[in-house]
């Protein structure tokens, strides 16, 4: 009798038997958190990019933009707090979901052949942490001035040019932006799916739009180190 009970497919489950999980404790809830925090971070990226592109307007314009920002501490700190929270929650959910992922399939396949998924979508667990590591360096580089290149608090323009004149650093930025772009390509449309929005007419368009936005963000960000390397943005117009 014992043995039978163990092999019974469906004993009574009941609401008491079904784990009474709170929304946040389900994988679905964590994905919703990732979606919301992810879209906040993506929104910041757009603003950040628009700000950065002012570098092409010249040293004065760019430095004035930076100065204006610093004169709005409420905006800057507000943004920083929201971003920190979003990043924290995004990473916290990721860590928990990564743990769930590995426990859900403890034995790997000897052969596994993906059928449809994009490289970007399968590598979110790699692109994410690499981008996070990049962000730490990026903050050291341009916010704290501890990135190993010349840094003057009053001259962000100069800092950028000095930073990107170093080929390995510029290349690292471009690569990081590539990974970020891949992460966005899957993350942006995933936002809708994870929050329950999918429609046969619009979802394919959303996926396309996500890819376009991801590429534009890559091109925008990557244009700056490339421009510095090619000498299009340089120190001596000063």
């Amino acid at each position, binding site marked *: 009798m014992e043995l*039978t009970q163990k092999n019974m497919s469906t004993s009574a489950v009941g609401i008491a038997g079904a784990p009474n999980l709170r929304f946040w404790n389900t994988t679905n809830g964590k994905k919703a958190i990732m979606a919301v925090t992810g879209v906040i971070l993506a929104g910041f990226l757009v603003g950040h990019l628009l700000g950065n592109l002012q570098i092409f307007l010249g040293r004065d314009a760019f430095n004035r933009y930076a100065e204006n920002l610093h004169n709005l501490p409420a905006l800057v700190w507000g943004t920083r707090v929201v971003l920190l929270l979003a990043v924290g929650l995004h990473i916290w959910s990721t860590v928990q979901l990564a743990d769930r992922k590995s426990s859900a399939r403890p034995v790997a396949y000897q052969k596994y052949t993906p059928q449809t998924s994009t490289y970007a979508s399968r590598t979110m667990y790699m692109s994410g942490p690499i981008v996070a590591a990049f962000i730490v360096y990026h903050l050291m580089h341009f916010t704290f001035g501890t990135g190993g290149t010349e840094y003057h608090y009053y001259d962000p323009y100069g800092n950028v040019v000095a930073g990107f004149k170093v080929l390995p650093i510029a290349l690292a930025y471009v690569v990081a932006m590539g990974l970020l772009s891949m992460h966005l390509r899957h993350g942006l449309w995933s936002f809708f799916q994870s929050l329950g929005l999918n429609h046969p007419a619009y979802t394919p368009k959303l996926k396309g739009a996500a890819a376009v936005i991801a590429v534009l963000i890559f091109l925008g960000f990557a244009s700056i180190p490339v421009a510095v390397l090619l000498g299009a943005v340089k120190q001596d117009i000063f």
Partner: protein
Amino acid sequence: MKLDSRIPGGPIETAWDRCRFENKLVNPANKRKYEVIVVGSGLAGGSAAATLGELGYNVKCFCFQDSPRRAHSIAAQGGINAAKNYQNDGDSIYRLFYDTVKGGDFRAREYNVYRLAQNSVNIIDQAVAQGVPFAREYGGTLANRSFGGAQVSRTFYARGQTGQQLLLGAYQGLERQIDAGRVTMFPRTEMLDLVVIDGKARGIITRNLVTGAIETHVADAVILGTGGYGNVYYLSTNAKGSNCTAIWRAYKRGAAFGNPCFTQIHPTCIPVSGDYQSKLTLMSESLRNDGRIWVPLKQGDKRSPSQIPENERDYYLERRYPSFGNLVPRDVASRNAKAVCDEGRGVGETALGVYLDFGASIQRLGEDKIRERYGNLFEMYQRITDENPYKVPMRIYPAIHYTMGGLWVDYQLQSTIPGLFVIGEANFSDHGANRLGASALMQGLSDGYFIVPYTLGNYLAGTQLDKVSDSAPEFQAALSGVQDRTKQFLNINGSRTVDSFHRELGKIMWDECGMARTAQGLESAISRIQSLREEFWQNVKVLGKNEEINQSLEKAGRVADFFELGELMCRDALTRNESCGGHFREEYQTPDGEAMRDDDNFSHASAWEYQGDNVTPVLHKEQLEFHYVHPSQRSYK
């Protein structure tokens, strides 16, 4: 043994009402004191277990599959009949009743069939309420189609997956009761014997297919909804696991077996392609609405179909049955296909096949229209045969599909063992000698949702049931019997696999007890089956042990029972000296080759009583009376 059909008598329209009123009821507070075993979780078993759980009984439900959702009812494609008359085309309960009795070639019990037709309307209501996504019209009402040559549109369907959707409805209800704790489910568990104490069914012996544990289950009543036995032919459209073991064990414990030789052969299946073939794939009968069936006029004509000109083709159904043409009933279509192949005019590599040609319809309606109607069937055909049926005619051949025979039951669906109820395809009722298309789902659900819940209560309320435990000598004897038999299979250690025996048995059955039967062939089949069975018990090879998943061991038990059942089928076919429905005896045909019924001598249901191993069973006859539908010769000319 005395057969008492317990038909209520009186006007047929109110017979079931009267029966329900006269049946005793179990006090609601007492229901949970009763243990009920349901074996099988298909449309019949699943719906019965769910309904009995809902009523408050303590139910244990068993299935050999890994989940109750996989029972073979799931494979039914075409649809389910119901006398709703939603199409306003003249249907009624009486017409469905009439069609079913006539379609069954007057070998079914009128009162049972009438009740089936009555219940049909409730089934649709129930299924829709459960969320079964039947096809609908744009206005939101339910859609119907005409099926199997019926002259009214009374078939409800859910794409080509009607059985699946109805089963999922029953399964969901069952899972709800499991969740509520009223039904305990035992999947991957096979019933290997029935325990009868003081003449009443009181429990079963099972084998856990994962651990091999052989166990006892005590109950106040046992319900078998274990399906048909078409796999006795090895090749059939049945699922590979479908078997006769539960009903055969019950037969050997004293339940009479009704009409074992009544099997149905479905005319539109994909032909066999080689010796390795493990099962046959059915394609919906609806294909015959637009496909034309033909073979070459000349014997052994090996030209490709496109090279055979119109005047060298024989559209034999249209030629022989001008009024019904390609839409003749299943038995007639099947027999004619066999006849032309026997003449050496069959097509395909094996010459066991006929063309089902959509060329004319594609010309008339356009490929798009045909794709819209049959697209998924064409895809399936192409997936299996690698031929494109839009370009090349399909090849089809008949295959075993359904068994009308089964354990004999009375009007209350109780077998000749009190407390043993048999429902769905496992019993012999309702379809007579031939089942109409889209009626199998109807019967399974009628029995499970709307009949056995009432009749079981009547039995329990009206029967003195002493407390029994599995230490009773009957339980212990059955338990050790099963254990011994299992050991025996593992100890024979012969040289032939179970499948090779099963194939050989299937071949004998198909050749001699298939679409056409003769006394001589049946006699030879009986002796060949007996000697094959003897060889099986000497020479079968079952590797492994009992205490593990052992699929060969499972098959060995099932095939051992198929041998015995196959022999009984031949015996039944041999004693029925007439042709009716799916049973065609070559000796009994009209001059133009049609089935010739003998109502004077064979207007009865056969009920066979087991007498012991290697002893000829005794035949009892339940005389059938026709007060409403008067037997006539079926004619489709």
